[in-house]
């Protein structure tokens, strides 16, 4: 079953009098429970693709279908609800709120989701139970990224979208993060779909599906028969 489908999707930005086509008539299907890596050089359209799937942006033309629903025509509020209920986001620079403690950052989800995971459990899951009452600036980069992941998984989202989640981390911490993300696709975690946008081609080795993007077009979609074990990957 397709978790995500894009049909003839284009995204055009107007920069001054010029048009910049970030995505150009893209068709794509992503199955449920897959660990997907989107690769491509800067400006290829990776992040745009992720933003459209996550309802953070709307396409200029075409349709975006998530969980069988066409989100293209959603209103602003419906898109907010969609993001709240169905999508977890993880960014390169964490985007956690500095005024809230680690636990409060995760509990934030209680404001918008009806049955979230318990914040303590989510934090235990990412190995941060000892730091629950610290503020973000008291944590390392890797720890902050784990807070961001805990916040995302606390929603129990069917779709986890990650934009360069290891980009600002050292390799050891990066591995830890990828392990946590990979775990979300397992059956015991609910068979969630994880989509990672990255420059780092090495991450492709652990993915179930590798999508290569160039100049706003999908160059290839490759199924990885035997994804590598994260610990085996040479960073």
């Amino acid at each position, binding site marked *: 079953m397709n978790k995500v489908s894009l049909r003839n999707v284009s995204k055009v930005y107007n920069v001054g009098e010029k048009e910049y086509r970030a995505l150009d008539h893209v068709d794509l299907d992503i199955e449920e429970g897959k660990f997907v890596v989107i690769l491509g050089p800067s400006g290829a359209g990776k*992040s745009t693709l992720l933003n459209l799937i996550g309802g953070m942006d709307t396409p200029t033309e075409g349709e975006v279908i998530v969980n069988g629903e066409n989100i293209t025509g959603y209103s602003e509020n419906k898109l907010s*609800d969609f*993001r709240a209920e169905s999508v977890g*986001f993880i960014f390169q620079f964490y*985007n956690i709120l500095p005024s809230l403690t680690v636990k409060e950052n995760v509990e*934030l989800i209680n*404001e*918008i989701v009806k049955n979230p995971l318990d914040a303590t459990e989510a934090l235990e899951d990412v190995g941060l139970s000892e730091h629950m*009452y610290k503020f973000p600036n008291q944590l390392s980069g890797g720890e902050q990224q784990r807070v961001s992941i805990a916040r995302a998984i606390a929603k129990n989202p069917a779709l986890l979208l990650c934009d360069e989640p290891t980009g600002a981390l050292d390799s050891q911490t990066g591995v830890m993060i990828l392990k946590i993300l990979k775990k979300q696709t397992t059956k015991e975690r609910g068979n969630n779909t994880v989509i990672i946008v990255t420059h780092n081609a090495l991450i492709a080795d652990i993915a179930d599906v590798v999508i290569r993007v160039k100049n706003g077009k999908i160059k290839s979609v490759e199924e990885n028969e035997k994804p590598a074990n994260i610990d085996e990957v040479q960073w």
Partner: protein
Amino acid sequence: MLRKKIFREIKGNFGQFFTIFAMIFLAIMAYSGINAFSDGLKYSSVEFYEENNLQDLWLYGENFTDDDLEKIRALDNVADVERYLSMSGSVDVNNSEGSETENIPAELNFLDKEDDKKNISTLYLREGEEYSRDKDGVWIGYYFAKARGIQVGDELTFYVEGYRFNEVVRGIVSTPDHVYTVSDPTVIFQDAADFGWAYLSMKEFPGEYLYDEILKEDDIVEYLDSADDIKKAVDTYSAMGVDIESIKKQLDIDEDVDLETALEKASLIKDGRADISDKAEFIKALDPDFDLDECLVYPNAIVDVAGTAPNPYVKSKELDEFESKLKSVKNELYELEDISVSAITGRDVWPSYASLKSESEEGDTYSGMFTFLFVFIAGLSVVTTMSRFVKKQRVQIGTLKALGFRNNRVTIHYIAYGFWVSVIAAILGLVIGGPLLGQPFLNMELSMFDLPGAHRCILSKNYILAAIIVIVITMITYMSIKSILKESAAQTLRLEVPHIKIKAKEGGKGISAKLPFSVKWNMRDILRSKSRSIMAIVGVMGSTLLIVMAFGMQDSLNHYLEWEFDKIQAYNYKLTLSENVSDDRLNELFDTYGDATSQTVAIEYRDSEGNIVTSSITVNDSDGYLRVSDHDTTTYDINDGIPDNTYGDINKAGALFATEKLLKENGYSLGDTIKWRIMGEDDWNETEIVAAYRDPQSQQFSMTRAAFEGLGEDYICDTIYTNEDLSNLTDADIDGVSTISSIESLKEQMNVMLEMISSMIILLITISAILGFIIIYNMGILALSEKMYQFATLKVLGFRFKKLAFIYTQQNLWLTIVGIILGLPLGYEFTDCMFKYAIGDNYDFFANIDLSAYLIAIIGTLIIMFVTSIALSRNLKKIDMVASLKANE
């Protein structure tokens, strides 16, 4: 290249730079605008006084003779002296429609017939011909002529003490001692159309008035009484053939007397058929040496003290020296032998001079107070804005340093932002303030003051303040960048680590653990962004304060009107009596209008330092129509004293009531003894202050009639108070009454005066409110831009717009409430200060603000806050989540 960067950055951050620009511009424009008019009034008046030689002293006596003038002129420090006769009269003029003739009170000044021109308080000719003793006709006041459409060449009919005479208008003039004229000192604001003044030679004085005065002399009256008997005797003797010279000898009549003419004219006079020439011939017949000129009296004189009076608005050694010179001239004048000087006053008590001085000094307090508010609020706001801007430029600063730009170059580049924005704002403020604010204010003042050549004036203090503001803003910019420049290029290129001093309780059991997310987040955000939060509070506080002031001033003025014109002056009509009303006529007036009366006595008293100060005592026998007020505005009949504020017997000889402000300013208190004397009398009284009362518009003394008469003085009332309906009567309708003033007309006069003050302040407060709005808006923009990425994160997480707007508005609401709580009492204090210091010395106002003013301030400020928050929170709807989060990276 960096110059291009400045322009583009300013363009890119237009909102923030524009608010800095607007705040500096408004502050300097308001300051220079107010000063342009108040300094303009001051310096224009100083110039006019100097060019037209305003007198330094006014002398009052019975008659200043040629010899007196010579003696005065001979004094060391006297440059010149002139005498004249000033009389209250009236003039017939057309009404405003020009259809009917109205009789309007006028001050008529008859100049010494020997003087070819006026050298002191010279006549500034607006139209017509120069004054000369050889010209008949009248020179009339400019504002009165303008208001009544009087032209050069018109013939006007004047009245003095019931004597009518016609004069042709030769010139229309202004004079430095008639910049502002009122018909009597109790008039607060006089419409120029309702009171005229004129100069003319003594030669034009109505001779008939003089002859009638002579005819009242005892020996003449005696002669007239016996004229019939003399006539009979003359007829008898003539029949007997006795010649007239023998008859005169027989009747013991001086041989120079033209007896036949005298008897003939006496008969006409007694029958009331004599005209002026008959009277003249009669007097000439009795005394062939009679010279009418010798009967002319000059009870007024003006003195020009040697040297030019220094600018009174600038404290200087010269001013002190001149003051002591005036003092010594005054003393010498009092000591001159054979001259009866009943009183000497200086410029400070002359209504024209004092009103203009007080009015122009009011601007100092406005400008001081408003500039303080403007500069303080704007300055703090600029600090926040500039430091936020520089912080946002951190990586760019690091890049410039990494590229090899020296610290000096980077510093100059960044201070250029603050410098140029403030320089342009300051220059525009200075240039626009005068014409935009100063000129309308000046025009408003010139509707009251006849001040030829009045102009706006921008003194160096305005440039100094503008320079200080530019320097301060530049310094603020420098301080903002200084700490960043201390770091290495590499350090600067790294994002600044936020400092958090808040500690969360282990286990999450603190109070905050139970608070909703939005409360927790907003509380911590306020604590994390202290300077921005303080700024927001100060901005709201300023805005609330200004709204309280705007409405509070109106309330306070209304309370003042009620206090003065309903509580203190508790009558419907006041009749000002003419001079020399006979006792019979007075009794008739009492029978008709009641005998509630008062007498105003001009006095001199010694202040606690021994200086002689001019003032007045109201001897109050008004049966409670003219009341005295305690500190809290409750009023009493003077005969009841003032509960809790009366010390001793109020009816003992000379027992004085004094206003609280007068006591305070002169260092006296209840129970003290004051040395005073009635103007023109030599003997000093030393009497006790037995009660302190409060009067909002005149700081002076009062006394019961019993206390006054206890001194052996005659009580001669000059005013009658009544509640009779006199609405259909005019001044001329009641014989023996010079003016009928209704309490409503007095209120109206005061309203006109207060409207001018109100409109000035309301204009300033409007500017202040704009400033407050800009500050609140600026703070809102800052708060939003600082938190944009956090809002973007929340939006990505799925928070709806309404929830985001709620979180954003909640913080603004808290800060606004704190600002309001601080602003309300400060609004009261500032209003009180404004009344205490901006209004003239003679007033004793205080702020009296209704609850509605506070409610309007609260609601108004909340509306500004909500409008601003709603307008700004719209940006939350448009947040480009991707761009905001990337920007944070």
